[in-house]
């Protein structure tokens, strides 16, 4: 969205690492940016209404909470069916991300991606079977790619201004 102004961009830059853990976090951000607390709250609300901020929330570390098995399940679902079944897969409470993506034949026949999390691979495999049952004959083939190592992880970085 190109109608973000300079102040919005400064506000995004100032909050993308997180909110300060102080009683009046928006007032503290306001001081740093030479704004008022009311302006910060108003602008953050507007950004949330525009969908630029998806939500303001806590992101738990799912590894720390014992969810150490993480698999990217991928499915080759007939295109028209994928539009119908994709939302049903995304609504499952153990699916953290669910997207329709282009295939890259012949190396990659899969178009539906669903990220699965569990405390063990056995649990993830059981969840995978739930999706397989849900997709039924609409799915031609599937696979699951477990992450073996995190090579890099940084948050989203937007250049200031």
């Amino acid at each position, binding site marked *: *969205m*190109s109608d*973000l102004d300079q102040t919005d961009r400064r506000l*995004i830059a100032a*909050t*993308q*690492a997180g*909110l300060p*853990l102080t*009683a*009046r*976090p928006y007032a503290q951000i306001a001081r740093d940016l030479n704004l008022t*607390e009311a302006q910060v*709250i108003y602008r953050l609300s507007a*950004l*949330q209404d525009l969908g*630029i*901020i*998806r939500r*303001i*929330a*806590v*992101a*738990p*570390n799912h*590894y*720390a*909470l014992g*969810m150490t098995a993480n698999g*990217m399940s991928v499915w080759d679902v007939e295109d028209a069916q994928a*539009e119908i079944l994709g939302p049903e897969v*995304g*609504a499952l*409470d153990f*699916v*953290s*991300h*669910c*997207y*329709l*993506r*282009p295939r*890259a034949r012949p*190396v*990659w026949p899969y178009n539906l*991606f669903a990220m699965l999390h569990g405390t063990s691979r056995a649990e993830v495999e059981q969840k995978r079977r739930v999706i397989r049952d849900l997709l039924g004959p609409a799915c031609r083939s599937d*696979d699951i*790619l*477990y*992450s*073996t*190592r*995190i*090579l*890099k*992880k*940084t948050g*989203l970085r*937007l*250049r200031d201004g």
Partner: protein
Amino acid sequence: MSRQTLAPDALDAMDRQILNRLQDGFPLTPHPFDDAAAPLGLTGDQLIERLSRLREIGAITRFGPFFDAAAMGGDFCLCALTAPQGDFDRIADLVNAHPEVAHNYARDHELNMWFVLATPTPEGIAETAARIEAETGLTVWRFPKLQEFFIGFRVQA
């Protein structure tokens, strides 16, 4: 981010309630910690204290606004390549050196390296992928999202 699992007694019932409740949202009010703490039966100061500790022990990876890069005029793209086994770490270094690479995972598949590009403009994706291809001599397969389906997921703490 740590991949270590916390000891089972690291979190008490209130910590778990906080993690479960605050995944859904946080108030945009002058005293947001007071407002978020009240339904939990805590004071704002107690909530701040617990959140600080949860962050310190690594139970929380982030607390704050989650931005949508595409809505800001930029773009995200999932990419993958096949790095030859003996050369894997060198390729990972070449890929990770790009600030546009937000995260990168080794996965057990012929396409064994999966990373996300985040760029301030939509054109940045193709440009960055082309630079990585030139540096590594490998094909970078791009899997941009065509559609995102509703996500009901919450980590149950």
